[in-house]
């Protein structure tokens, strides 16, 4: 019996047709989702972008050393406090000389949500013509898994370790993508690596929207080392984050919210937390708190999506 040929995802085209921008043999940690994001972004946006980044998990690859480099992309590396502002300077100069350039900031949550938040907020408010991609691995992973403001409630990190008197991080994560959307930026979206087609669409829309103003994409990027996830499970963790509504996929174009991936029957949060050990110390009551937070945040996004319907 002839097997019906399965329709191939457009994603394969991105990976097979486009010129490779990275040196052969290059690798981040085993299973790293940031690596997939870093490889995927230039595949979709093209090689003529200017990447702006800072110290963090992406830095060891993007920075280069002395005159050597592991990629062929145009790159501006600055301090964590200066990513969105440096991108502003680059963008404004090329606008001044009449050159259309796609400036892409690529940083972790430590920069975007914490130490580099002020310039990010400023650039979004000024509606600078740049794309800002935050790979959110929920902590300062490059320096040894310390908590950041996007570390979720109850997560054990090296600065909020679970112990006799501690249940991990005592406060919930800062909802950065929502905060960015409320800046009134031209385009804000969430994405993750289990949903690459969704991510690609959002990248392309961001590239289009950056001609109008600021575009921000928040990419949920689990860290195998920091969260203590088996290296073959990282994509499964991304998928489960969406299916439990822990990380809903949405976009806000000129302030109009829309869920890009609806989950018919959301799984309980345990199906997500059990895949990693950073929540291993949590008791049922703690998990309930986390579930409650997930439900509330999802309801909030749903309500925002309903506005104007």
């Amino acid at each position, binding site marked *: 019996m002839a097997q019906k040929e399965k329709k191939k995802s457009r994603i394969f085209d991105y990976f097979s047709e486009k010129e490779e921008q990275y040196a052969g043999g290059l690798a981040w940690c085993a299973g790293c989702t940031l690596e997939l994001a870093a490889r995927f972004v230039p595949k979709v946006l093209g090689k003529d*972008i200017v990447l702006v980044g800072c110290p963090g998990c992406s830095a060891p690859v993007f*920075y280069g050393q002395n005159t050597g480099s592991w990629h062929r992309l145009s790159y501006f590396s600055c301090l964590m406090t*200066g990513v969105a502002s440096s991108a502003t300077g680059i963008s404004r*100069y090329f*606008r001044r000389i009449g050159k259309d350039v796609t400036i892409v900031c690529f940083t972790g949550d430590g920069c975007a949500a914490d130490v580099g938040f002020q310039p990010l907020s400023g650039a979004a408010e000024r509606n600078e013509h740049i794309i800002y991609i935050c790979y959110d691995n929920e902590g300062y992973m490059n320096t040894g898994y310390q908590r950041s403001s996007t570390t979720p409630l109850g997560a054990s990190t090296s600065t909020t370790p679970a112990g006799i008197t501690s249940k991990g991080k005592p406060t919930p994560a800062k909802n950065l993508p929502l905060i960015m959307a409320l800046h009134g930026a031209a385009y804000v979206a969430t994405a993750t690596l289990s949903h690459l087609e969704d991510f690609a669409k959002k990248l392309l829309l961001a590239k289009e929207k950056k001609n109008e103003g600021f575009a921000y994409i928040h990419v949920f990027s689990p860290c195998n080392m920091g969260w203590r996830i088996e290296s073959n499970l990282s994509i499964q963790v991304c998928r489960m984050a969406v299916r439990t509504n822990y990380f809903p996929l949405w976009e806000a174009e000129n302030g109009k919210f829309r869920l890009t991936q609806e989950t018919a029957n959301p799984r309980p949060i345990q199906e997500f937390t059990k895949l990693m050990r950073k929540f291993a110390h949590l008791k049922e009551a703690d998990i309930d708190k986390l579930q409650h937070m997930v439900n509330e945040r999802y309801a909030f996004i749903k309500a925002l999506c309903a506005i104007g319907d």
Partner: protein
Amino acid sequence: MTAQKGQVKVITGNGAAAYAAMLCRPDVVTSYPITPMSEVAEQLSAFHADGILDAEMVEVEGENSAMNVVAAASISGGRAFTASSSWGLSFMYDAVQQASGFRAPVVMAIANRETPGILAVSGGQQDIVSTRDTGWIQVIVEDCQEIFDTIIMAFRLAEDYDIQLPVMVNYDGFYLSYLAQAVEIADREDVDRFLAPLKQQPPRPTLVPGEPLGAGAHGIEIGFVELRYKHCTAMERATTKLDEIDKEFGKIFGRSYGGQIDEYRTGDAEILVIASGGAAGTARTVVDAKRNEGIKVGLIKLRLFRPFPRQRLIEALRGKKAIGVIDRSVCFGWNCGPTYMELKALSSEFGVVPMLSYIDGMANLDITVPHIERVIDETYAAACGKPYQEVTWIPLEE
């Protein structure tokens, strides 16, 4: 080629800074308002609003961003200008260091003000000292015309192919920033002509979209050392380069300032007073008065603070019998003025003579004529072999 006579306007020091920056045709301008330089930001915004300044204006949300915007615009190939003061300079400290490490030829006007720790909405030069070791070229000026002229010269210096370093133009906050003086505004075409040689140079390395070029790569071991060395040697070249640019400016515009240092009646002087900024103007009149009394005193106005004008100072100070140094800031850990400490490091080369450090003019206190008379009298007495106090905090002894 000499410039045509410019229009004379009565403007403040801040206004002079904004006017000069506008005439240099920057591509990207940003500044975050702070007392006492806010007027620079306002004036530049007004120029932009009126179409006189054709540049990208970025109204940033803080000084740290101001410096990152201009440094990145500069590395992309643009001419960039910003201004700040004290706290603002502290808040952009990481970006200030990065800008010089990136060899970004940014020009920044600084209306000098005391630094945080003790809240002071008042002038002082501690902010210059706090950024002394950031690898920037630092010039200190005396009056509004010199602010105007030096900002134009600063672009020539910063963007010179042999230099490629950012330049701070420092003027006394609260005094010069708000003081209205007659300033001859250079003609735009003359400024263009003065800056034209920069276009004849080989292009400096910049960010090129789509090209595999990175800015700010990780300097590893010898690669790091090499870049630091090149930065240091470029700083050294800036000393004589400033002299050359100052002379050339004089030929075209009819005003020059001595380059690294301005010497006044130093040739036959037995003792010298060293000051910078607006205090040098007061000191000049006191030097004249003391000359009339028969004291052979001269004045050195320190213009270049970084790189330190070692060679010019050695030549000017050699053979003098005593030196009085006035600072509007302190050197923590040495309990003396910073210029004094730096000159001490040079003293073996110009002769070990009595050197007296005077700390004055902090927090908007005036460096008055009697204060400078005292400096000269005590320095003269020291030259005559009388005992002297090494460090004097003048305001505490009044």
